[in-house]
């Protein structure tokens, strides 16, 4: 057949054998083409098969999965048909991969440089010295700090954003014809994300390298991809140039995706003018880690004399980049991590700093929901046990009453009742987060602290969860403290937004005037949120000294 395109995938089928021994088809006849130097995006909800397809381009299927049909022609060779040896020869040289989480994909016990140039060693591409030079050039091109020295460090000694770019360098060193990025920026802050995207784009364009960019974030994809392929349930829903998809999306799922980006009409506060009662106030709260020093304060201050107020039935958003102290603040309020100084007044009563000292009711009335649902839910217990424990513990309900209540709670969080018998590992990310939330509701609290509960979810699911929160608030008159580094999410639900930087509160604003933040850091932060507009990234001009001052260190 005549090779017109670099990549030609023809009705690819991939089967997975579940541990029941049942065979399920997870990729159902996918076809796609990639021209030389073209970057296409694979988007779709979690579990749609993005990673699977991407990996199949390298002739690789994860354990338990098997390529059962179709052709995967890359640069004229059918990866599906090749022997493992021949595939190995192409990996790293013709096709390279940038993993979903770079942090996990670096070998913790060897230096970054070693791993970056390993490809050249494996395929004997060039002598090590030359390889190191090349690597340093790439580091520079990917605008990494200290390009000369960074290679000598170990993975745990560099930040997530940097690792992500180092992973890219690792992929590019064997100068491949095709690079596969698997959600390279999902784990990053908006501020960092910009730089990474910029770096990727420039390098790819410079080398005329074709790419597959896996993501579920349309806005990001819009910045980097020439064409977009929408996956769902292991099937291609629609394909088109970025422009077409953004302007005239055909497929309902694609529409949903786009919809998730339209600024949502926030519920007009009915009692906006009515005098609001304060539920939680914290004054000059300071907390941190490491040894306590003479002044009774810890060495590393993660939170620096922060004060704030949460009103009944209203929500407070806390945003800021990774590591700025959001979670710490949340944990301090919940009493998980006792404060070093400052006071917490909840419902008129001053709270002990350590949860262990607080009364059962105080504990019950303030619930916290963690970022990662899979670690927040005990994998060994079925959903019903997880949800009904607070019922038994706080409300002393008997069996029937409990099981009735569990049903109600599942309804509340829009989960099918049948799910109650499943274990967390049998749930999707979104479902887990809902269960996680249902458990908090079971206590019927006055205040729920949500620490990045949507960060691990893809846009569609995330906005669904947000909607859910709003409704519940209307029904139960709850208040939320909503922590996130994603402005759009916070905008959607909060009445007040507190911006944190480096453990300190820099300013507090209302969603209406996010367009005009006063503090320079807030400016940087807000300006970094990607827009659907494909030209946004290239057009983006950021005050350089702002960046140098507040950008990722």
């Amino acid at each position, binding site marked *: 057949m005549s090779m017109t395109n670099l990549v030609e995938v023809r009705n690819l089928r991939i089967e997975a054998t*579940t*541990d*029941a*021994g*049942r065979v*399920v088809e997870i990729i159902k006849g996918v076809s796609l083409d990639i021209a030389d130097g073209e970057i296409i995006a694979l988007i779709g909800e979690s579990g749609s098969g993005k990673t699977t397809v991407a990996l199949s381009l390298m002739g690789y299927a994860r354990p338990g999965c098997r390529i059962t049909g179709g052709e995967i022609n890359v640069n004229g060779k059918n990866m599906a048909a090749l022997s493992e040896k021949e595939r190995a020869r192409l990996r790293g040289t013709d096709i390279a991969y940038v993993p979903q989480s770079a942090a996990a994909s670096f070998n913790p016990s060897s230096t970054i440089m070693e791993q970056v140039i390993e490809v050249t060693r494996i395929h004997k591409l060039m002598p090590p010295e030359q390889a190191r030079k090349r690597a340093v050039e790439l580091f520079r091109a990917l605008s990494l700090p200290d390009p000369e020295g960074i290679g000598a460090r170990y993975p745990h000694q560099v930040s997530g954003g940097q690792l992500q770019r180092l992973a890219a360098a690792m992929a590019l060193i064997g100068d491949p014809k095709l690079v596969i990025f698997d959600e390279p920026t999902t784990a990053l802050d908006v501020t960092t994300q910009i730089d990474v995207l910029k770096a990727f784009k420039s390098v790819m364009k410079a080398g005329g390298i074709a790419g597959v960019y896996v993501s579920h974030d349309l806005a990001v994809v819009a910045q980097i991809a020439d064409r977009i392929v929408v996956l769902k349930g292991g099937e291609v829903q629609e394909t088109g140039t970025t422009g077409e998809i953004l302007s005239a999306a055909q497929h309902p799922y694609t529409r949903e995706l786009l919809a998730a980006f339209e600024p949502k009409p926030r519920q007009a506060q009915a009692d906006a003018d009515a005098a609001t009662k304060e539920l939680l106030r914290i004054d000059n709260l300071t907390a941190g880690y490491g040894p306590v020093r003479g002044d009774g304060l810890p060495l590393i201050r993660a939170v620096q004399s922060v004060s704030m107020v949460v009103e009944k039935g209203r929500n407070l958003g806390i945003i800021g980049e990774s590591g700025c102290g959001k979670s710490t603040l949340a944990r301090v309020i*919940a*009493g*998980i991590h006792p404060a070093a100084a400052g006071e917490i007044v909840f419902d008129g009563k001053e709270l002990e700093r350590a*949860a*262990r000292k*607080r009364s*059962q009711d105080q*504990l019950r009335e303030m619930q*916290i929901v*963690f970022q*990662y649902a899979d*670690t*927040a*839910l*005990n*994998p*060994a*217990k079925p959903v019903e046990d997880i949800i009904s*424990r*607070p019922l038994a*513990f*706080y409300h002393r309900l008997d069996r029937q009453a409990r099981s009735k209540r569990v049903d109600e709670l599942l309804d509340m969080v829009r989960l099918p009742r049948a799910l109650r018998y499943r*274990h967390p*590992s*049998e749930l999707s990310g979104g479902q887990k987060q809902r269960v996680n939330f249902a*458990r908090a509701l079971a*206590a019927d609290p006055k205040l729920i602290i949500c620490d990045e509960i949507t960060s691990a979810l893809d846009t569609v699911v995330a906005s669904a969860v947000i909607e859910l929160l709003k409704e519940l608030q209307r029904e139960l008159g709850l208040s939320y403290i909503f922590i996130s580094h994603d402005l759009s999410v916070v905008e959607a639900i909060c009445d007040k937004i507190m911006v944190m930087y480096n453990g300190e509160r820099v300013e507090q604003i209302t969603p209406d005037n996010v367009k005009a933040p006063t503090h320079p850091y807030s400016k940087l932060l807000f300006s970094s949120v990607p827009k659907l507009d494909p030209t946004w990234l290239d057009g983006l001009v950021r005050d350089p000294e702002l960046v140098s001052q507040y950008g990722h260190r």
Partner: protein
Amino acid sequence: MARAATSRRSFLGHSYNLVGVVASLVILAWTVVAIFAPYIIPHPIGDIVDDDYFGPMRQGLWLGSDYLGRDMLSRVLMGARYTVGISLAAVSIACFSGVVLGMIAAVTGGWLDTCLSRFLDAMNSIPSKLFGLVVVAAVGSSIPVLILTLAVIYIPGAYRFARALAVNINTMDFMTVARVRGESTIYLIGSEILPNIIRPVLADFGLRFVFIVLLLSGLSFLGLGLQPPLADWGALVRENIGGLPFAAPAVIVPSLAIASLTISVNLLIDNLPQKIRDRDA
């Protein structure tokens, strides 16, 4: 491991494989023997029924006779009782206390953790056979003493193992959630941690069982075992070792018995039935 093993068949939402099934059958068989031994032995284990010693297998003495001319079949059957019984009791005590302590140390942390770890480490550094020797020399050897000694010897190991696992679980958010809910330590270890470590703990249990069976035989080699005419398999091998040169069944059979039990236990551990976690089940 399990994936590595041969053909798997599923049943009752669990998937088994042949090796595992066979192994568990062997174990079951020995357990049954252990329970009913007293009713099925042809001769009292103390009676001398054969003028010859190390007699061959033959009509009436199906497994030949031992060094005193006692019926080997009866002794092996009864031996099952002591080997399985004592080892099981000992390993249960060892693992139960070890695991509970380990989990408590992990969730409580602090000085309690440190003290426990130090102390049990110290225990661990005393060679087990010598420990047994001292204990038996001090209080003589009886079944309870044996069980307790064996248990004590293997508590530190179980502790180390369980603690390591529990510490990992302890860092999970759901533990924090439970703590903030105000749960008691008992609940934390019982309902939050244990379910998550039960599988490896079981595996460890099986392995220790094997070690205890062997240590028991080691002890009877040193003459610290059961009271005659009772004898566990190890003791049988020991007291008839003189028959090894002419491959007397008296020494071969109990050895095979030990091997069959311990190997089965290990194979079972490696091929435990697995609960099916089907994504879209």
